[in-house]
């Protein structure tokens, strides 16, 4: 298996009047080609910032990003343009991510035109094919975004992101704005395209059943840090971190015969501005002890199941 993307100790801080906001704080992981890594967490945990930093929509504060083994942490404009052909993003909100003054066909073909490598005929042919692939009707060629519903707009966003055949795609909550019947259509489409073209996805979402369905591996984030990482199946069958346990137990399941022990967490996510050292989940953790005030790092609990909790062995005895 080839490592397509790897990040080491990635940090992204933002300056705020109250001090430094640690949006992404020392995150390391890698993705193999053709696989999907899911990033889950609640609002404000830094998952979108991480996704954007990976593809240089945001410049990282510290740490390293490798693409095909090459260090791309700091690249100049020229190089970045080349890289972007291989790294794309699908945004959450199909209502605000499309230019309202561009028609379907203009939006989708723009990346092709910008490369300067394709002739008029070729562009038209590739665009037509792409629209067909993502299930956009021919009659929508010259439609503007306001004429289309959310599902169709999201298909345009996907078509635009994928038309250059990128190797790596960050999907930032691509189905969160859609109804379940449409959500299923889009998820299937993304899986089909991955099988066909061997795309590599980072799939960012707060919806745990979606991430379970689409990911090979899942990373759970809390306040800028990765607190648990393992295979998708393993995470749902054997969550080890107290936050992951609470998170999974909180999902409402559409089955009236399942009885579950719900872990209701106290309080809410604390501020990411100038966080104290130590476990960031400590304030809400039912197992919090004094020793949790020292920084926690990911440790391997066997077969690559990584957990950042000092008491993990005691808790899961």
């Amino acid at each position, binding site marked *: 298996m080839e490592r397509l993307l790897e990040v080491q100790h990635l940090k992204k801080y933002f300056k705020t009047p109250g001090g430094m906001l640690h949006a992404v704080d020392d995150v390391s992981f890698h993705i193999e080609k053709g696989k999907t890594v899911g990033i889950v967490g*609640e609002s404000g945990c830094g998952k979108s910032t991480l996704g954007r930093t990976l593809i240089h929509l945001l410049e990282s504060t510290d740490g390293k990003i490798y693409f095909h083994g090459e260090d791309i942490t700091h690249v100049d404009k020229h190089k970045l343009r080349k890289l972007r052909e291989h790294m794309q993003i699908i945004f959450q909100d199909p209502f605000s991510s499309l230019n309202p003054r561009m028609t379907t066909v203009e939006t989708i073909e723009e990346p092709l035109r910008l490369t300067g490598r394709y002739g008029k005929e070729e562009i038209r042919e590739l665009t037509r094919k792409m629209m067909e692939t993502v299930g956009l009707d021919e009659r929508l060629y010259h439609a503007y975004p306001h004429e289309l519903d959310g599902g169709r707009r999201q298909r345009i966003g996907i078509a635009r992101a994928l038309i250059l055949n990128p190797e790596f795609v960050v999907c930032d909550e691509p189905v969160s704005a859609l109804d379940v*019947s449409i959500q*299923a259509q889009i998820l*299937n489409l993304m*899986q089909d395209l991955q099988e066909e073209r061997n795309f590599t996805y980072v799939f960012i979402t707060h919806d745990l059943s979606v991430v*379970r369905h689409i990911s090979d591996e899942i990373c759970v984030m809390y306040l800028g840090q990765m607190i648990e990482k393992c295979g998708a199946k393993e995470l749902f069958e054997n969550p080890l971190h107290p936050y992951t346990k609470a998170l999974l*137990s909180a999902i409402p399941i*559409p089955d009236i015969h399942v009885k579950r022990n719900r872990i209701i967490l106290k309080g*809410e996510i604390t501020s990411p501005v100038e966080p104290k050292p130590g476990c960031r989940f400590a304030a809400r953790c039912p197992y919090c002890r004094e020793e949790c005030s020292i920084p926690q790092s990911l440790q391997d609990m066997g077969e690559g199941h990584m957990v950042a909790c000092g008491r993990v062995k005691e808790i899961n005895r």
Partner: protein
Amino acid sequence: MESKELLLSVKELAVSYRTSEEIVRAVNGVSFSVNRKETLGLVGETGAGKTTIAKAIMSILPDPPASVDGGEILFEENDLLHMPEKEIRKIRGKKISMIFQDPMTALNPVFTVGDQIAEGIRIHENVSRKESEERAKAMLEMVGIPSSRYGEYPHQFSGGMKQRVVIAIALSCNPELLIADEPTTALDVTIQAQVLEMIGNLKEQMGTAMILITHDLGIVAEVCDNVAVVYAGEIVEMGSKEDLFDRPAHPYTNGLFAALPSLAGDQKRLKPIKGLTPNPANLPEGCKFWPRCPYATEECRQENPGLREIGPGHFSRCTRKSQEGC
């Protein structure tokens, strides 16, 4: 088991939105009832008409463009649709109250949260300012916010806390009926669990009946007694929670269940419902679901099947004789 006492009954409600260009038929002949202390779930996708039904019950539809084209809404045997505004004001916020989807916009940013809770109490309960303040503080404590935060403004609260304030406002006058319109959709899942548990406990304590509007079948499974599935402004299936989850009959209900990714993660591919929800300004003839239905026949295209009782209290709007294998 306690005897059931009817609280609200909606009969053949029809609501449309009229603009200069088109008529949007949002609600088309919806009937259901809610008994005291029971929770009814209204489930459906965007644009199905769920929120319009709720607003009609609250008499807060913006008119124009909305117009109620027919039907009755009987609350404690009085028709809310033909009641003078003065009378409705005595009921709205007092006997029937509503929790809105987005706590960020439901609160007034220039008043303190305490004042916003106290306002309703003062208007409806005819009590002094001081007493209304005290009761508002008690409400804050009830929803898990320290009463010392009475004088703070909405922007000083997080999303989950704001939704608690909205819930405190809704429950401040001990309503008979609470309408909760996607009360946790804007919240994170751990906060959603907190809020749902709290709503459940308070409802239990106060004996309030509830209409819960949601698109999340997981929440329905947890919270509701009865369920009505809404599609294109019509109820397509209605029954007890057991009917809906164990014996779903309508192809749309089945489609919704099949489209959900499962946490067990045993499915390779999802089964979406083909096509899109119909444009309510241009609804199909016949059964409104036929263009997306895998079982549609010529008959379905021509005639809208009415709701048929297929089991005690279990209704489905589908003509298929055998519902097996749906």
